[in-house]
């Protein structure tokens, strides 16, 4: 039995689906979001640590994240809710020559994209973060306009605004099939009902591949497990997100910041990667990540770890998301594969996808669509993961 007809149905009330629903409904479209979990942001979004930066190496991601920063940084004055936005900046620190060379080599393209990021010598970096281990510190980049916000509060705020604009959310409901008629997705079937739609957006993140396979389009998105830790709160010490991209046994990148409550949030990129949708923590995580923390900022050996958690990065082979339509199948938009950056890409992507749906794209946005298409070669590499 057909329940209802919507302009747009979105699979997934996560980092991308929720703000996209907000902008689409604000643009006057009727929107239904179908989410298998009990409330928004429960799959991967809430596992984000809250970092938001435009300092990537790929122009489309830089563009989308700059838009996101505009939204996050003005949210409180626009809507009144405090989502804990803080422009604390990002600092990629260099303790060896190879890292220094890599970071400096990216500055040109970042400057071309208009990013506010520069190289700072050891003393400048220590002035920003006096607790850093000075031994061997060669300096680092600092991008003061990057920052952080609370994924928990932001997710709730986007959901509330989407609802206020008329978007409907069905929680505890799973997409079970997509019905294609005349090369167009026309209906979405779930375990609870069946709905007609003008457009179906696949924003299912780590589960997007399964959903896309329902219409025979395979997209290379694999869930990749990451763990994170949060400490007790202490008096503010530093503002920036500190990133150390050296490789260490069991991990590649390591990054941490102090949130507005005073807690240190720290995590690392496992190397080799750990594939799958796992939620239980591994016993090797804390010994490894704590060692990296005291390596960069020894005084943090004194702070107490409060909680750890594990979430998934919907990874693509080149580290960039898959955003856009599919050739030969109308009414389908893929919006997944954000590779752990769904939270920072989210609101910018929501606006961008709304423009895609409404058909009024700027030339930069057209470039993004081309760059992030599902059938690209996936052979380039994001250099600042």
């Amino acid at each position, binding site marked *: 039995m057909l329940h209802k007809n919507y302009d747009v149905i979105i699979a997934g009330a996560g980092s991308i689906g929720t703000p996209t629903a907000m902008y689409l409904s604000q643009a006057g479209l009727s929107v239904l979001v179908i989410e298998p979990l009990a409330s928004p942001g429960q799959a991967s979004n809430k596992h984000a640590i809250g970092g938001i930066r435009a300092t990537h190496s790929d122009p489309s991601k830089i563009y989308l994240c700059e838009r996101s920063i505009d939204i996050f940084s003005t949210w409180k004055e626009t809507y009144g809710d405090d989502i804990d936005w803080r422009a604390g900046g990002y600092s990629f620190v260099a303790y060896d020559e190879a890292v220094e060379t890599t970071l400096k080599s990216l500055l040109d393209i970042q400057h071309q994209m208009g990013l506010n990021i520069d190289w700072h010598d050891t003393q400048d970096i220590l002035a920003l973060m006096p607790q850093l281990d000075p031994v061997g510190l060669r300096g680092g980049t600092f991008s003061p306009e990057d920052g952080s916000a609370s994924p928990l509060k932001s997710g709730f705020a986007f959901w509330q605004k989407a609802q206020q604009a008329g978007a409907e959310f069905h929680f505890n409901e799973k997409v079970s099939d997509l019905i294609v008629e005349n090369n167009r997705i026309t209906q979405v079937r779930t375990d609870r009902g069946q709905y007609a739609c003008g457009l179906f957006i696949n924003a299912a993140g780590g589960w997007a591949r399964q959903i896309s396979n329902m219409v025979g389009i395979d997209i290379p998105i694999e869930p990749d497990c990451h763990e994170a830790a949060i400490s007790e709160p202490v008096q503010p010490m530093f503002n920036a997100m500190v990133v150390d991209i050296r490789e260490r046994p069991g991990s590649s990148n390591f990054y941490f910041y102090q949130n507005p409550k005073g807690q240190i949030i720290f995590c690392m990129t496992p190397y080799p990667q750990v594939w799958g949708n796992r939620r239980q923590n*591994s016993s090797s995580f804390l010994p490894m990540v704590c060692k990296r923390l005291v390596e960069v900022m020894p005084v943090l050996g004194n*702070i107490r*770890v409060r909680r750890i958690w594990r979430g998934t990065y919907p990874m693509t082979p080149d580290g960039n998301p898959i955003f856009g339509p599919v050739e030969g199948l109308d009414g389908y938009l893929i919006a997944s594969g954000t590779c752990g950056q769904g939270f920072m890409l989210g609101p910018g992507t929501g606006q961008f996808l709304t423009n895609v749906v409404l058909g009024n794209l700027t030339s930069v946005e057209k470039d993004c669509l081309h760059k992030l298409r599902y059938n690209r070669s996936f052979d380039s590499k994001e250099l600042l993961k």
Partner: protein
Amino acid sequence: MPDNRIKSHPILIDETTASIPFYWNEQLFHAKPNEMISSALMAQGVTVFRHHVKDKSPQGIFCANGQCSQCMVIANGLPVKACMTAVTPDMKIVPADGLPVLPQSNPAFTPSKFQRTVEIEVLIIGAGPAGLSAAVQLGNAGANVLLIDDKNQPGGKLVLQTHRFFGSKQAVFAGTRGIDIAKKLADQVKNISNFEIWINSTAIGVFEDKTVDVYRDQKEVVHVKPEILLIATGARERSLAFPGNTLPGVYGAGAFQTLVNRDLVKPCQNLFIIGGGNVGLIAGYHAIQAGIHVAGLVEAAPYCGGYKVHKDKLARSGVPIYTSHTVLEARGSEKVEQVVIAKVDEKFQPIPGTEQVYDCDTLLIAVGLEPVDEFYSAAKEVGMQVYAAGDAKEIAEASAAIFSGKIVGSEIAKVLGKDVPEIPAIWKETEEILKSRPGKLYEEYYPEKQEGVFPVFHCLQEIPCNPCANVCPKDLIFIDEADIRHLPHFDLERIDECIACGRCVATCPGLAISLVDFRNREGSALVSLPVEQDNPNIEVGKPIQATDIEGRILDEFTIDKIKSVAGLKDGTRLISFEAPVELAKRISGFRIIEPSQAQAFEGEPLKPEDIDDQSYVCRCERITAGEIRRLIKAGVRDINQIKAVTYASMGACGGKTCLNLIRRMFAAEGIPLAEVTDPPVRPAFVEVPVKDFVEMDFKEGGQNAA
């Protein structure tokens, strides 16, 4: 400076002296060896340990059990739980006011003291009654066992229990005091080979690689990989949200028993208790034993849920027990000073106009227990072979926990292929009986006989208990052996054989037996009652007010004799006095404390929304019932979302106190819990310093090399 240490106690003896100097706010204090900071501070009159970062509200102890994190102080520069950190010589302790400043000196990294990965046949978490008895079974079966406990001595909550245990004498040491059972069990495990116990060692999480991380000796995190995991983590106390519920002086009954019975600290003068279950009733009795005035006890239900004999003990002592009453609010500025109570209707709603105000300096919350079962669930999720025993499995009396541990220990030994006998079917039956709730209540009944000497049982409720039937040297007392919940009977046919030894009177855990002697008296009888008080008023020649079973005063008599009972050297004595024949059998106790008088309630009772906005559900983040109820009313059904918006349960304790309250709020709003999504429970169970996870590689010369 006040000295709140208990110097004399009818049961407990402590010969240690407070000899360890330390500083509180630069003032010189002294602690006993190995004493926890919280007890040392409260022994010297400190009740406010910090002020909350969010609103500067004063905070004191709440659980005193390492669960809630409310008692944080700064010790030698580091934030710690006062109840889990022992005072060290010259320790500098200050209140944790606002956010702590992280020490800006690098921590010392030293070579590992312990082996970082341990493989073992059985890991038992929790050395309380269940864990210890399981360890005994497993150890005797030849299993390789590691038992860990977060406290500094084995015994779990047995070490707080100064009262004699109920249950079956044959099965679980009934009639022996909890503190003595703890020693007996700890002695039994000492003799086992292949057995190791780590005290001061907290399990902090169960991981996907079937590993349990243990914060060993509060020094280093080690990975334990057991073949089988046994969760014997006991229970934690439920909380209650009402205005003033986080004031210093409002805390759990378990915390109170820890202070009074484990650490011999008398934390208050005038106590009020919320909850008429066994925990609240026993805590009240322990208070009286420690010389603390008990101003009253409220129970929302029309009757106390605990054993009637426990309730009677309190009532006879002079404690007003208000059933069908609730607490409306705790009042005070830096500390609780008064409690407001009111009668409730059949829907548990307060009835306006029935408010009463009592002075008190401490308010105990004793509204039930819930299993500490998060390790069990986590171990199941990762596919470990895991068992639970005792309160971690099902809340019941400690006697049932002892037996539950014994059964589960044997089951695990079997699974491990050890050569152990089949578990007798009778064990399961015994466990069920020990777990049973208070049963049928009988009318007050006394034998008609008015000659000779015999015991009178003021024991009218079916509970699993049989010590009296085992201590009679002449075998004159009977309890159905097949079901020890049945009431005891004295064989009046053989009345001439009673030698008036008083052992039954002194052994009864409920203090519910009197001895009545009609011999050689005209119109009167000699009544003997048990006494477990060190009270200067209980002396030969002094008057006492004898009461009936409900605590109603029958008359005043003069104490004739006070004596110990041959063969019983653990504190109970018998007092005797002469009473008229017509009253003698009805006398079941005597008044010890002068009942408090209520103050007048002035002004208007708080409105429901004010109550909600002044009642704290999440103590760590200070989130009120109002904030949570508004979300529930707005349609939120996922507790994860309540967390996301309010940060409730995201504080230091990780939801150990508030999640249960939040679930109850959903139920109160008429929402079936099946519609409510629970949040996941994640490591770490307690906060652990970053440095204690790190295993450094040490080069020659002691240089750290990460």
